[in-house]
């Protein structure tokens, strides 16, 4: 008797979320099976890769990570253009790190202007991330939403402490929110419910489950994402049927292993960092990521190959 592959029966579907405006707008989500289980269901939109752009020259990046962007550091517009034109980004992920009240504390107005310029400079969708300071982000991302009215950005991270302010901005100015929760499926679902109650339409929500770097908690993220997809696809958990976005570059590249220089024990630093980022990305894809925020062009190339192979 011929071998037949046992198949999972799915009852749910991930919602489709459109990002950006114009001809290069993209849609993510729409899966009716586990990631890349194309023999069981559909994955109408392949996972997408966003390339990071910092609004200020990063001070703690390793040499390997800085190298491809050396000519554009400190100029987010040029940086975004290079990421799109040279490295073929599907999206830009503008990291407004300078707004951190514990750092440069760039005023929200000024940062929102930067965001507006970056969005205007590229024709691909843009993700705008705050510094992670709940209070500042509430003000900043609301401002960004207003300044970029109707351009359908992804704004994040939106957390339970500031979802009301940012959510209201996303409703008023039509943007998508990246709902961020601390690696817990119930907390993720709770935030999605709260955003829904607030009036944020389902087509404007993506989930950011919090990403751990390889060797630094990736297994937690993996299992939460895996459970998220199980609940969404096989248990009709309607408030978990959202695309997932993983902000992984900053987690991977801040590890000791990615930052250490060449050494006989650990080998070539550049290759090590690239592989760590690529492997983290691969794991997240297998767990169900729809959008990856990445940094190194070589790591991105490797992950693209993998996506192409698995989608074939």
């Amino acid at each position: 008797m011929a071998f037949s592959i046992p198949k999972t029966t799915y009852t749910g579907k991930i919602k489709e979320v459109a990002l950006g405006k114009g001809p290069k707008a993209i849609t993510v989500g729409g899966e009716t099976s586990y990631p890349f289980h194309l023999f069981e269901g559909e994955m109408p939109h392949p996972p997408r890769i966003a390339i990071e752009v910092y609004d200020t020259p990063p001070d703690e990046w390793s040499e390997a990570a800085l190298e491809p962007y050396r000519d554009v550091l400190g100029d987010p517009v040029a940086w975004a253009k290079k990421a799109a034109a040279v490295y073929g980004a599907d999206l830009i992920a503008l990291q407004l790190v300078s707004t951190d009240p514990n750092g440069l504390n760039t005023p929200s107005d000024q940062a929102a202007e930067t965001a507006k310029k970056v969005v205007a400079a590229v024709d691909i969708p843009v993700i705008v991330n705050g510094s992670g300071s709940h209070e500042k982000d509430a003000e900043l991302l609301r401002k960004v939403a207003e300044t970029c009215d109707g351009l359908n950005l992804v704004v994040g991270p939106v957390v339970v402490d500031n979802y009301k302010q940012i959510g209201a901005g996303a409703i008023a100015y039509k943007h998508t929110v990246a709902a961020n929760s601390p690696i817990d499926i119930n907390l993720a679902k709770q935030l999605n419910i709260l955003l829904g109650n607030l009036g944020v339409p389902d087509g404007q929500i993506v989930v950011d489950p919090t990403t751990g770097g390889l060797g630094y908690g990736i297994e937690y993220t993996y299992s939460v994402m895996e459970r998220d997809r199980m609940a969404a696809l096989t248990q009709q958990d309607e408030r978990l049927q959202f695309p997932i976005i993983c902000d992984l570059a900053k987690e991977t590249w801040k590890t000791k292993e990615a930052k250490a220089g060449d050494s006989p024990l650990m080998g070539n630093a550049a290759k090590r960092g690239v592989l760590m980022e690529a492997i983290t990305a691969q794991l997240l894809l297998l767990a169900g990521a729809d959008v990856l925020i990445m940094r190194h062009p070589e790591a991105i190339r490797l992950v693209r190959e993998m996506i192409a192979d698995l989608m074939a």
Partner: protein
Amino acid sequence: MGKHKVTFQPSDRHIFVDEGENLLQAAMEAGIHINASCGGNATCGKCKVKIVGGAVASPMHAGLSEAEYADGYRLACLSTVTGDVDVDIPLESQVDKSVLALKGDRLAAPYLLSPKDIFQLVQGWDVDPTVFKRYVELDPPTLNDNVSDLTRLTHAIYRQHGINGISSDFRLIMKLSRLLRKADWKVTVTLVQTRKGYKLINAEAGDNRQQNYSIVLDIGTTTIFGQILNLNECRVAACPDGACDGATIFALAEASDYNPQISYGEDVITRIVYSQKPGGLKKMQETVVASINGIIDELLKMSRIDRSLVSHLVVAGNTTMTQLLLGVDPKYIREAPYVPTANLIPPVRAVHLGINVGDHVHIYLFPCVASYVGGDIVAGILGSGIFQREALTLYMDIGTNGEIVIGNKDWLASVSCSAGPAFEGAGIKFGMRATRGAIEEVSINPRTCEPMILTIGRVKPIGICGSGLIDAVAELLEAGVIDQKGKFHQNLPTKRVRKGEDGYEYVLAYKNETRIQDDIVLTEIDIENLIRTKGSIYAGCKVLLKSVGLGFKDLEQIIIAGGFGRHLDLEKAIFIGLLPEIDARKFIFVGNGSLLGARLLSFSKELLKETERIALMMTNLELSNHAGFMDEFIAAMFLPHTDASAFPGVHKRLRAGREAV
């Protein structure tokens, strides 16, 4: 006594109440909102209603004009129902009919639960106390009959009462000879039934049978409750407010106090840690005994009963509290694999622990099951009658530790989860025990966000107790003042939501409406504590049920115990997700379950064996190493719950509330 029909217009809801019921209370029970912020004390003048038909007794009040009074306007809190009555609610208190329609129909099912007592819960027991008195008349000794005084006494007891095989307490022997002669050979003896037979513990001159009292104590982590019982008449002896039949006694019929060990730590773990410091154990033992002595003094004063007439103490406490009371080192309760020193403790002489009662008095301690399932829960199972029922019952004791038991007369399984003291009023900014002046019921108008509050004793409020907290959070949620995470919405059309020193808060009563020099508020932190507490209890229930292969729908009965207050509003407890959304008729509220069992045991010695059987047949499930608990806990840290399908009715109402805005 006839019931009167009270109809509220324009919503056309009605309720049947007893003659003499307060109109504001009747409205609350019917689920009708009338603005009231002084607790029902007739000072705020907000609960103005119009009597359009029927009769109430209601005096004039400064808040009403002559014309209004003539027109039928009255203050609801001053009105007493004397017959069928139609009441019109003024515009500013009205709640949309569509919203009201979704609330539970309080005619169809009893939502406001009052505590049931042992007479209703436990079947087939006789009043036959463990400690009892008998009157005996002895023949004085002669030269021909000169057996010892003690033998003479025991022989007389056997001849006159048929009680055989009596052993004697040495302390009695010391005073016996003089006492017998002084009493002219007519004495009242006190006997106690022990595992080995009867023990003679005391003798008093003359016939003193009518004076036989017992004190029961529930030693909780946060609160200590005590009651004094009249063993002959089978009722609670001290009852300042009068009514003392089994069905109505609760907090007001007893004395209570916060456990003073709280100053060494809020939960059992920190107390165990403290007990390991030099002198710590002794200190803990002494503080709890001091507090017990305070409660005993208060009980004796209230009841005007002489200390010497107390013959028995029955104590129910969790395992740690039991060991700390005895001065037994609780170190290993805290350390894996969590082993208590002893589950069955023999009766202990009270004076040895420093408890201020007669030196013949022994303490019976309820047996424990495991380190985190103690005698308090065994007492609850006894008092609520689960041990003799066929019906599959879930018993929830909602205290600082949430203890949950499932089973029936054949099997019992339990879990214990660290819940926190929120429902006892601790860890809440204006929290208090369920005593006079505590806000016990709350309703909030979803349009204006104005509150309706009722206090225990109908006096100006001084704080809020567990039942009031449940009501307040449920009402704030339904009115859309807080979100499902318990965080306040801003930009609401009310001044009552404001930013205070602890973040956002809701003003339940302004300073001039209270008896304290402060606004009474409910803060976001309070709500967070309450959510944590209720989440832990719900998660404990879920895990326990799952591990025996059952779900909430399989339960035939749910018995709720806990010191929330005098009542528990079921609908509101379900609304916040403390209790599962199942048929309201399956719920029974027993108030303090541990005292319930302690009372029963005081009254009936046959149940001693049952008590030990309960302790032995209970299987405890350890949650500390349970993989699923944390997950269930986080899922339950939401109002009402992350899993919307478990609370369909609540979600329907929340949706309707959002759409109404």
